[in-house]
């Protein structure tokens, strides 16, 4: 797919001492089901984390806690110095710092591409339409899809829709981007355009947490790979180390399956 040599641009340096996200002893229950078991994780500014593991292991749940799409039972979540409380004000202020891209794109079908991107700028940041559209166009251009600005989502291919979804999140100028299997719903020929967009973001220094099984992407972009199973992080390693010599039995089995399918 893409070449797998790690990126080594100077701009990709990680500030070791600037913590952007801190999860401390997170526990999440769905009724009687313990979905996240005492997870702690620190992400520094500029870091790119890849989260992988079998289906149902809690990857989506974990990243969805970061912007409070899921509420946690106990533990603390701090994003850009703000600790999450259970009130709308605190949740809103954290959501301003966090962009999210979903597996199923979730573009708004009744809005043109440009309006998909400018809606939140107008509603959340209170911008005028023309001011918002300037920003929307800037990010649509950045994901190389500006020429589709006046179309509706259904008129775009899956890969194009996902790039619009990335632009829509970037418009809010978040400090961190969360990706939940952004290429899993795509036809194979469209995976590359989305991964290339994400690689571009990484090169520009964006802090990212990506749930993905794209190992080429992980090798090229990630600082750390986290392997999850049964609501726990079982292994955490640099990508080369993780892919060539996984330590945990579950990780070995998982990688075996992924390789068998590629």
């Amino acid at each position, binding site marked *: 797919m893409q070449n797998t040599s790690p990126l080594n641009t100077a701009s990709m340096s990680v500030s070791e001492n600037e913590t952007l996200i801190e999860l401390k002893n997170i526990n999440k229950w769905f009724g009687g089901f313990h979905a996240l078991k005492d997870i702690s994780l620190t992400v520094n500014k500029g870091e790119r984390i890849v989260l992988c593991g079998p289906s149902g292991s809690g990857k989506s749940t974990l990243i969805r806690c970061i912007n409070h799409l899921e509420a946690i039972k106990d533990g603390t979540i701090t994003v850009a110095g703000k600790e999450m409380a259970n009130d709308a004000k605190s949740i809103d202020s954290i959501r301003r710092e966090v962009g999210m891209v*979903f597996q199923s794109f979730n573009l*708004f079908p009744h809005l043109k591409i440009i309006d998909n991107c400018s809606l939140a700028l107008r*509603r959340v940041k209170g911008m005028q339409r023309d001011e918002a559209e300037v920003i929307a166009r800037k990010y649509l251009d950045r994901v190389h899809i500006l020429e589709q600005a006046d179309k509706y989502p259904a008129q775009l291919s899956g890969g194009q829709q996902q790039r619009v979804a990335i632009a829509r999140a970037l418009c809010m100028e978040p400090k961190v981007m969360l990706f939940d299997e952004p290429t899993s719903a795509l036809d194979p020929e469209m995976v590359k355009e989305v991964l290339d967009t994400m690689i571009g973001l990484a090169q520009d220094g964006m802090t990212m947490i990506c749930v993905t099984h794209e190992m080429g992407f992980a090798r090229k972009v990630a600082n750390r790979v986290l392997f999850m199973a049964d609501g726990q992080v079982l292994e955490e390693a640099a990508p080369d180390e993780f892919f060539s010599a996984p330590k945990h039995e579950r990780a070995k089995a998982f990688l075996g399956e992924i390789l068998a399918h590629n």
Partner: protein
Amino acid sequence: MNQLDFGIVIERWDELLHGVALTLALSTAGIVCSLIIGVIGVAMHRTKNPLLQAPVIAFVELIRNTPFLIQLFFLFFALPLLGVRLNPTITAIIALAINGGAYSIEIIRGGVESIPRGQIEAGAALGLSSTQIFRDIVLIPALRAIYPALSSQFILLTLTSSVCSSISASELTHFAQRIESETFRSFEVYFTITGLYLLISWLIMTALSSIGRRHFSYPN
């Protein structure tokens, strides 16, 4: 009375056309108000706040399980007891709005429930409030999903407006009854207004589909 005589209908054609215009106005007012009630009702129901939800549920149950004629009489005879005096036509609009509103709540709620959760989550992740999510993200696709059902409901409302003749609201059936009682030409009069109601339905249907094409026809 054995001979058909449509002369009387032609003689009072002005009056009948005036009736058509009034029924169109009454129905349009009823439709607009019931749409507003429907959207506000669904927005209240969606909050999951029992203080806002319970009145909506009670309202829908009450209206959908009682006859329209009784609702109309209730408003017409009960409101004056409360010191509110309204002319029959205004009372008719309120009754149509309330009745149509209750059915609209049920229909629109179905549309809202058909919106994928991911759409709402995408809005939330962008920082939109739940009111903004409802208004800017959910409402249009929800109305689109149930637009045919809502349109049928609005045609039904239009036809139901003839019941408002029983409180002497100014509309087509009331005018027809007056002409009939003055001329005794029952068949000719009701034959004619049957045709006029067909025309009214067709006009409302045409207006609804042109609104549909304009506002709910994005590619899917």
